[in-house]
């Protein structure tokens, strides 16, 4: 059996080329191991070979992001490894962001699994923890002896396609991904146990640490509504009859954009709801109840508003993740701006 191949990325300092004064060196590909790669090779064992090491100056990488990524990706691609390892970067900020950036690019652009390693306060952690396995290390190169076996352990699991366990078990920094598992006790017993501990003032561990929420600042009021272009957007699932884009009834992975040029009224024959979270009878009878096209046409005729935008955007809010919702809005908000829409009426159910 041929050995699994690994390509290793390090900076100029760990390659022994020099410190800050050499941070502008361009990417360089060397066969075999360099610097910390030696210890890493030892920890990875005989079935895995570090076939090449890429060395790049931290300043060069961060100041020429696109170019540097392109160059490094080409070098990685040449060897087509089973795994890409960047770092460890410890608490070196620019090295950490370089490791994170390139490891993510290798993973996403080349489809090659990647792992990196840094100190928890390295700025690269917050930038890439969601995208990557980042092995937690001490804050300086003095922690190399501990970092190497930790990286090797996770690297071997990734190479062998083994199931990766939780962060504390595997030694990586929490990625913020929720993963289901079966506990030893049912939820009700866990709840009573937790309450008893809380009442006694003992330490307890919540199963879901509360996130910090964004606050959206309300837009400025429209000065003259009679000149405003108004768009309708809904999470109530109103779609042309037959749901042409098959928007899901719950946990939507997409939104629809539909032309209502000349449409004065949404009727039972032409529109319906795809939403799975409420009794659809009334929305199907008259979809204006959720997406008030008829009323806005009246207001348009009366001159109360300038005009109704010719497209409406729609999805089902039912169980749809905040992440998906944000991605939908990021996309169509740009279109609304480009189309000169002054205000949006957002209806929910």
């Amino acid at each position, binding site marked *: 059996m041929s050995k699994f191949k690994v390509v290793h990325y390090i900076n100029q300092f760990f390659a022994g080329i020099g410190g800050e004064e050499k941070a502008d060196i361009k990417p360089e590909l060397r066969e075999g191991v360099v610097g910390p790669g030696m210890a890493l090779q030892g920890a990875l064992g005989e079935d895995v070979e570090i076939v090449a090491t890429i060395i790049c100056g931290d300043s060069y990488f961060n100041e020429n992001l696109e170019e540097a990524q392109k160059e490094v990706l080409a070098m990685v691609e040449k060897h087509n490894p089973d795994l890409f390892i960047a770092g460890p970067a410890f608490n070196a900020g620019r090295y950490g962001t370089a490791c994170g950036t390139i490891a993510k690019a290798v993973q996403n652009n080349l489809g090659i699994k990647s792992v990196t390693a840094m100190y928890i306060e390295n700025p690269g952690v917050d930038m890439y923890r969601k995208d990557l396995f980042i092995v937690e290390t001490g804050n300086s190169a003095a922690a190399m002896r501990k970092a190497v076996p930790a990286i090797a352990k996770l690297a071997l699991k990734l190479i062998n396609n083994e199931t990766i366990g939780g962060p504390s078990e595997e030694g990586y920094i929490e990625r913020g*991904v929720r993963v289901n598992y079966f506990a030893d006790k049912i939820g009700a017993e866990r709840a009573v146990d937790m309450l*008893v501990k809380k009442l006694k003032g003992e330490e307890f561990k*919540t199963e879901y640490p509360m996130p910090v929420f964004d606050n959206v600042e309300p837009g400025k009021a429209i000065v003259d509504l009679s000149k405003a272009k108004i768009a309708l957007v809904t999470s109530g699932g109103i779609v042309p009859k037959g749901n042409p884009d098959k928007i899901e009834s719950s946990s939507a992975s997409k939104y629809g954009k539909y032309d209502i040029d000349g449409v004065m009224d949404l009727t039972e024959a032409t529109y319906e709801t795809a939403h*799975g979270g409420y009794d659809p009878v009334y929305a199907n009878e008259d979809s204006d109840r959720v997406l008030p096209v008829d009323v806005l046409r009246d207001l348009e005729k009366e001159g109360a508003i300038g005009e109704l935008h010719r497209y409406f955007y729609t999805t089902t809010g039912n169980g749809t993740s905040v992440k998906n919702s944000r991605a939908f809005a990021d996309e169509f908000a740009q279109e609304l701006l480009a189309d000169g829409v002054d205000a949006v009426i957002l209806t929910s159910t």
Partner: protein
Amino acid sequence: MRLELGEILISDVQFGDVCKVENGILYVSKEEISALVLEDEHIKSVEIDLAKPGEEVRITPVKDVIQPRVKVEGKGGIFPGVISEVETVGEGRTHVLQGAAVVTCGKIVGFQEGIIDMTGPGAEYTPFSKLNNVVMVIEPVEGLKQHDYERAARMAGLKTAAFLGELARDLTPDKIDVYETKPLFEQANEYPDLPKVGYVYMLQTQGLLHDTYVYGVDAKKIVPTVLYPTEIMDGAILSGNCVSACDKNTTYHHLNNPIIKSLYAQHGKEINFMGVIITNENVYLADKHRSSNWTAKFTKYLGLDGAIVSQEGFGNPDTDLIMNCKKIEAEGVKTVIVTDEYAGRDGSSQSLADADPAANAVVTGGNANQLIVLPPMKKVIGMLDYTDKIAGGFAGSLRPDGSIEAEIQVITGATNELGFNKLTAQTF
């Protein structure tokens, strides 16, 4: 109130000429059950089938699951205000056909019914795969609107469960558990040194087929109130809703509320379990404010030191959950909340629609968006044609070979928020 709950253990279910229980086997007469169900003019037909643990059977679209029970001593009857007259229940003795259930099916909304697999990976996620199920697929008469269909299916299930429960009246239970909660001052004095704990029980009342009934009253129309825990074991609270299958509380869940059982298990040991505060999850903001104000008021009024708050459903009710938690904590009463998560299929989104730092003790029933592949089953009770549209399904969910790829959201009871299951989630 003191209630003896006598369990008659049911190890098998079979068809028979008459409905009866013998040697732990429940015999079901199709004719008797059909006649009972077809009394309702809204129902065109009912198909009765059986599903046992381990069988290669898929039941869908599941509306409700109900445990057969009968009141043998004490005031009132089972499912008061709906099947029996509206008498206050929770005292005396009740018999239970433990291990059996009535499962009602029908394409009521199409989006909001669930799947129960009796074997395979899906069976791990639903407690109902472990029961001997009497399944009823109920077809409405032509032109019946969904809410009328829902009511007809609900009543058919309750009537059948009460009818089968009646078979247990004169049987000798295999096991008897006793649950007792005393009047407030007496209960407080019984264990003066233990922390006084209550249970805030949120009921799904978003309306339009998202309803729960308390002694026959639509819980949308109640203000929060206090119940003895044993009242719930006699069917004071019934499911009438069609929400996502994974986290709706079926009538079976209400009857067997595990938070109530777990609180009783520690009653007199670690805590003094004082009672249950029921509240709703209405969609109007004023209702949310009023109800959460009142639950907080009651926790204080009852002199509680701690409370468990459980949710039903997700999204909109997340706001009720957080309001309850925040206001109860503000009264100086410590809380643990029980919920589930919608963190996206990759688990990387935030899990709830609302949050507050006061909610520092959370128990979760898991991420409902997790994908699962349910292999084809030899037999399907019900129908599959709606599978792509079910909440948690998507275009292509139903594959040509009969397997289903969908979120665990489609599985009845998978991420239950009464803490019925072992499923939970952690951050990776």
